[in-house]
């Protein structure tokens, strides 16, 4: 399989999330949970103990009534590229249980390899990684809906958004069976992208100039993928994590909320 991949062009899958369109409805969260066999507990109101590969944050502009404003920000794993694939989490994992694929740009997570040291969680500034503090338990009968494409995780390991990697595998299998080496844009789409009623999530290959993600975000390869679209930004771009999830917003305060700035420092995400 590896042999075969050498003939195909390297992909860099990424996302653009349009925050002007995102309504905070939470469909992406549920789509992800049901696609990826994410477990649930009786009380999920402690968000620091709640496994949500996709988490929709609510941002506020900090102003008083009636100038107050809110914005929702869905946060999957950013599939950070760092420098040459050294994502913050990947380089620290002592057991190679998480890896950056140069073929797809996807940061993988191998549950059966992970031994739960949580160093990767300390490394990830986006809190995109979740630890299985409990055994996953489905009420009697409910395990019937579990997808066979994604193995349920055991207690004591870390999990996170995989960009629905199994969908890539299935799409590739299909393509190979049909004698193709390349996927059409629509053949590999993530569950959250597909579900979003607002069409706020766009997914595709950032290396492919024909894909919508590339056309919208306009990543600048000379500057580590920095978006050239003035409304686009990435979270914590200044840290050098080089994330592959781009956000769009027409609101200045939202773009500025994407990164930390010292008071009076100018800039809004990408400039």
């Amino acid at each position, binding site marked *: 399989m590896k042999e075969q991949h050498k003939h195909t062009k390297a992909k860099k899958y990424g996302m653009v999330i349009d925050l002007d369109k995102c309504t905070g409805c939470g469909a992406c969260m549920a789509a992800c949970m049901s696609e990826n066999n994410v477990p649930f507990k009786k009380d999920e109101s*402690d968000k*620091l*103990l709640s496994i949500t590969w996709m988490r929709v*944050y*609510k*941002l*506020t502009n900090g102003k008083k009534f009636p100038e107050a404003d809110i914005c929702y*920000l869905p946060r999957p794993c950013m599939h950070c590229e*760092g420098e040459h694939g*050294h994502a*913050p989490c990947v*380089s*620290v*994992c*002592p*057991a*190679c*249980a998480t890896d950056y694929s140069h073929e797809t740009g996807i940061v993988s997570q191998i549950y059966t*390899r*992970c*031994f*739960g*040291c*949580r*160093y990767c*969680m*300390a*490394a*990830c*500034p*986006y*809190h995109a*990684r*979740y*630890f*299985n*503090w*409990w*055994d996953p338990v489905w009420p009697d009968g409910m395990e019937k809906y579990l997808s066979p494409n994604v193995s349920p995780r*055991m*207690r*004591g*390991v*870390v999990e996170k958004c995989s960009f629905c990697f199994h969908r890539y595998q299935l799409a590739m299998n299909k393509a190979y069976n049909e004698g193709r080496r390349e996927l059409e844009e629509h053949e590999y789409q993530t569950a959250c992208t597909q579900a979003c009623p607002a069409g706020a999530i766009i997914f595709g290959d950032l290396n492919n100039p024909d894909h919508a993600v590339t056309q919208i975000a306009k990543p600048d390869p000379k500057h580590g993928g920095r978006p050239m679209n003035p409304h686009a930004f990435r*979270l*914590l771009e*200044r*840290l*050098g*994590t080089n994330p592959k999830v781009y956000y769009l917003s027409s609101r200045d305060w939202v773009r500025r*909320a*994407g*990164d*930390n*700035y*010292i*008071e009076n*420092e100018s800039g809004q995400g990408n400039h």
Partner: protein
Amino acid sequence: MDSALIPEGVKRCSFGKFIFWLVVFGAVLLWGVVAMLLCWFKGLNQTNMNDAYGFALWIWADLGVIALGGGAFFTGLLRYVFAKDELKNIINFAVLIGFICYSSALLILAIDVGQPLRSWFIFWHANVHSMLTEVAFCLSCYFAVLTIEYIPLILENRQIDRVPFFHNLSHNMHGIMAIFAATGAFLSFFHQGSLGGTPAVLFGRPFAFREGVLIWPWTFFLFTWSAAASGVCFTMLITCITRKITRKRLVKQKVMMLLAKIAGWMLATYTIAKIIDTWYWAAVTAPSKGFTLMDFYSNNPLYGIWILVLEIVVCGVIPSIILITRKGRDSSFLFVSAVLLGALGACVNRWVMVLQVMAVPVLTFESWFMYFPSWQEIATTILPVAYGIILIMISYRYLPIFPQERELEG
């Protein structure tokens, strides 16, 4: 009752008293063991850690005991490599403390990971880029070295020593101890350094991230240095405590003063380096990521910026001054305060580098994360303390830990 086991020519408390204290600390130990078993069988939901605090009390305790255990490698280095011969009179105790610290560290790690039965993956599937891999390898190797250094001590027990095989073994091991000490020093240098690198390579965490030279961030060296300084302070501190409890001198004051002077200079140079590091980080590194120094400390309701003052001034500058001045060293009150603060300094530093890193929000729309350990975490953290006390009690009672004791008390 157990007099046959007690080294010749020294006096020990009654067996009953010994057993009484053994039971007291044994109870504490048991409490920790119960908590440990809960964590193993029920999982880490027994702790108050969460997805923001993936590293918490245990990792701090780990880094802390390893720093405090640093007295062993540094004293060994001085004794065997730099040939400070007087130090042979305290090296046994330093090794014992090191052994306790490192075995504790390994135990805590075994509780801390989510899948302890797979911890060997760290060796099997080792990732050379990971600081933890380096830590794991060096830590295990150095623990093996400490075990090898500790074994001859056990073999010197009066009864064991009677067995010719053990006697010879012990003798031969002493002979090659310099090699182990040097190896240990080398390994220790690396894993103390790697531990320093552990937070500093987290470039997603501006509070922890440090620049450096080649692949080593500055904290690599700072951790090694501070472990040497604080470890020695800790060894002296425990020696003082043991002296107080046993009401015996145990080690000649000259030896202690030599060690204190070295520790003082280590601590002083470390503190200077630490101040430079902090300044550079606050003035250059952090602002380049959009943070000011106060951003990191402002929202902590407990201590705020005072923890930085505590670490650098109270636990750095003050004990350095005491220990490098003769007057300071000679005043027993100042001396004990200084070694206490010196040891505390490393603990505070490790606390900051673990827990404060987790607490500071990086995403602008998150707020500070608060955490208080569960009783299971506290019990398992106290477990090594009880274990250490028990091991010191037993070793002190039955092994000739302090070679000068007979002479001093005779």
